[in-house]
């Protein structure tokens, strides 16, 4: 009987309509960030501030793979879908963690993943789940069986291209941005027909000759200008726009040879979802020389009749934009920054003359890994707070000339720990977007790569580098519960419910954990 129910549930189609209204079915987690707004907020409240102290591990699923496990699972009607290291994908019974199917994409030996053989998750639409791979394939799998429905090569991976992000499905499109900013790629965002795998549009994040913005690159530097787009963007249905963040110009730590602003690196792009046409852009860091990708999930916030989009950027500033126009409304530091002490005419923090890397090296904060990174932030409209994982780490940036060679790492630099030997640390910070003030922080012993989930139970969930999964009071930041998972967290948590029981899940070490009430 249960099996029949499950089979019936698994066959339910995830329509675009359901994705648009994801918040109305909080038992499911239908997109990477939980909904199109990107707020990673769960409306489930069964686990709450009053009972979270009794939370227990309900099941553990092990991929038995090494390397960073960065997935955010999807859950649809009792089935959990996720990816693992080395381009694994799997479907589990969300109540037990028992596998229904497993898939692994065979990877060539000469792939070019910059930062681990990682994958951050799937997208779902209709009866298919979608995966981007480290050899730059886009693959549709039958959600019931894990069988390949279609598999297309987006680009030649040998030139340094790969996919690590969870795609986003919008209407009948599978949208994803490429990784490879460490290899002198020319970045792009692609949209594929979910039924056929046919590419419907591509937006190059580095404009070609004759296109607006092309003149922000020196000579031929645009051809290897980087600007990857390796974090899942968000979608605004009323304006049919995607808001998609982009990464660093290449080479990441050497500006010589690519004079100019280097559009559209380190920017937020507003793209027409049907055509990929650029409506507006906002560049957070011009002519970046510190690898400060803007690849942090932006969150759409509607407040007081205003339609905003906010991002806690890797460069240490928290930006609020009007999402109709891309106009900057505020930019304030939420972590230690030494690279900017003035703002340009638009109110955008501008680099000072003490931040550019030198051959001998120069200490700059935040460090090369940023004041935050790809780990997801969260926004809870009830507390009105934007929660972000901050990393307090300064580095010494040095620069050196480096010839470009196709498919080879292309940094033009090295970076080192600050010789002040200050210990690195981290914090979960709660930012009031209206005032841009940090209302409270929960200090981590060392910088963590865990994102944040907020829930209607008045809770935040996050993980740490020492392997703890932690629940905090969303209003005050007080820790209420923790569990030692035995492996560092490189993932963002999510929540779901099956049979009326709430679970909170997170990847740590090489395992996926689900927690619930006893």
């Amino acid at each position: 009987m249960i099996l029949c129910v499950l089979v019936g549930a698994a066959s339910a189609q995830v329509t675009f309509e359901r994705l648009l209204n994801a918040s109305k079915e909080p038992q499911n987690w239908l997109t990477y960030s939980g909904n199109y707004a990107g707020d990673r907020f769960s409306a489930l409240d069964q686990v709450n501030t009053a009972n979270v102290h009794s939370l227990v591990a309900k099941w553990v699923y092990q991929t038995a793979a090494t390397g960073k496990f960065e997935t955010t699972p999807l859950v649809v009607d009792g089935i959990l879908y996720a990816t693992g290291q080395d381009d694994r994908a799997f479907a589990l019974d969300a109540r037990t963690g028992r596998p229904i199917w497993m898939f692994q994409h065979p990877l060539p030996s000469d792939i070019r993943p910059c930062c681990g053989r990682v994958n951050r998750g799937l997208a779902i639409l209709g009866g298919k789940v979608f995966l981007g791979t480290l050899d730059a394939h886009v693959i549709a799998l039958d959600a019931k069986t894990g069988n390949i429905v279609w598999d297309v090569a987006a680009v030649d991976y040998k030139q340094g291209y790969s996919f690590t992000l969870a795609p986003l499905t919008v209407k009948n499109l599978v949208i994803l941005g490429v990784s490879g900013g460490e290899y002198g790629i020319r970045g792009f965002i692609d949209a594929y027909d979910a039924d056929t795998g046919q590419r419907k549009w591509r937006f190059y994040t580095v404009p070609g000759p004759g296109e607006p913005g092309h003149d922000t690159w020196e000579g031929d530097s645009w051809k290897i200008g980087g600007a990857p787009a390796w974090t899942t963007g968000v979608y605004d249905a009323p304006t049919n726009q995607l808001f998609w963040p982009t990464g660093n110009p290449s080479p990441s730590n050497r500006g010589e040879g690519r004079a100019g602003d280097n559009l559209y690196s380190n920017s937020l792009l507003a793209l027409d979802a049907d055509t990929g046409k650029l409506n507006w852009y906002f560049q957070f860091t011009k002519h970046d020389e510190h690898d400060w990708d803007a690849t942090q999930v932006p969150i759409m916030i509607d407040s007081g009749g205003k339609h905003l989009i906010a991002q806690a950027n890797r460069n240490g500033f928290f930006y609020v934009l009007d999402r109709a126009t891309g106009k900057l409304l505020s930019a304030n530091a939420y972590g230690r920054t030494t690279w900017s002490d003035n703002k340009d005419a638009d109110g955008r923090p501008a680099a000072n003359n003490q931040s550019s890397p030198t051959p001998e090296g120069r200490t700059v904060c935040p460090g090369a890994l940023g004041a935050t990174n790809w780990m997801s932030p969260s926004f809870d409209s009830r507390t009105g707070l934007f929660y972000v994982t901050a990393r307090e780490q300064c580095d010494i940036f040095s620069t050196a000339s480096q010839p470009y060679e196709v498919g080879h790492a292309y940094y033009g630099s090295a970076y080192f720990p600050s010789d002040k030997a200050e210990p690195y640390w981290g914090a979960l910070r709660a930012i009031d977007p209206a005032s841009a003030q940090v209302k409270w922080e929960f200090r981590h012993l060392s910088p963590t790569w865990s994102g944040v989930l907020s829930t209607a139970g008045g809770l935040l969930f996050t993980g740490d580098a020492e392997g703890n999964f932690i629940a905090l009071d969303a209003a005050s930041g007080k820790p209420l519960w923790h569990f030692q998972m035995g492996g560092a967290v490189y993932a963002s948590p999510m929540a779901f419910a099956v049979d009326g029981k709430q679970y909170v899940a997170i990847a740590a070490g090489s395992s996926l954990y689900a927690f619930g009430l006893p």
Partner: protein
Amino acid sequence: MRSGNALRWAKLNYTVAMLVVFLASSTRAEDVRNPLSADPKAAKAGEFEFRINCAFCHGLGARGGGRGPDLTRAHKRHGDADADLFQNISQGIPGTVMPANGTNGQGVGMTDDEIWQIIAYLRSVQVKTPAKPAGNAARGKELFYGDANCSTCHMVEGKGGRLGPDLTAVGTARTVDALVESVRIPSKRLAWGLTESTKEFAQEYQTVTVVTAGGEEIKGVTLNDDQFSLQMMDTTEQIRLFEKDKLRSIQKTRESLMPIYNPTILSDKDLNDIIAYLLSVGMK
């Protein structure tokens, strides 16, 4: 792909991998030579790879960075042969903070060719005839276990105290400059303690003072801690385990428990002798 096929594929992969391991192990390690050693461009390409992947710990020019050893030395504790270097770069060195290629988020995953380029680069910067340590190792050993009191807290080859880090391998793991600095200014860069392969930053030998619920004050060094628990060694070398919320107070400082050995306490000559001793042990 059906799930069954996926599993079969994984098994096939495993079989192939084991075959490769078998074939690799059937070749004597010393027979493996850098295929790029005759390529004059390899060392230059390796220098770029080194900056990206290795310099964070081993320093610019491979001269050691306080975290990783000076790799310009001909003698390396974990092997000097091309095959040893290849193995250490691609697989990491168990029991140390040296990670396997492409696993730690620092730098990129390198191809085999790129690893060989790095080895070509290391050969190009290797000091051909290392300067003999200025000091007298035999006398250094006497000082270490005698008047300089090093062995009160430090162990070498199984003999000595446990409050400070074991120094058996430190002669190859750190530059001479780093050794001098850690004796003259112990708090400038605290030593690393426990390292977990999954942790980006190793625990340091921070000084910690706790007051228990019962009012007992205990001072020592941090062995390992996280948000909620603390493992420390007190000054009597007892390992103490605490849950932080059950303690009345915890105070951690970056002032090392190690006394400052300035030149009036330990002359430059004595220090040179002790370093010569540590180098001689480390080179074994």
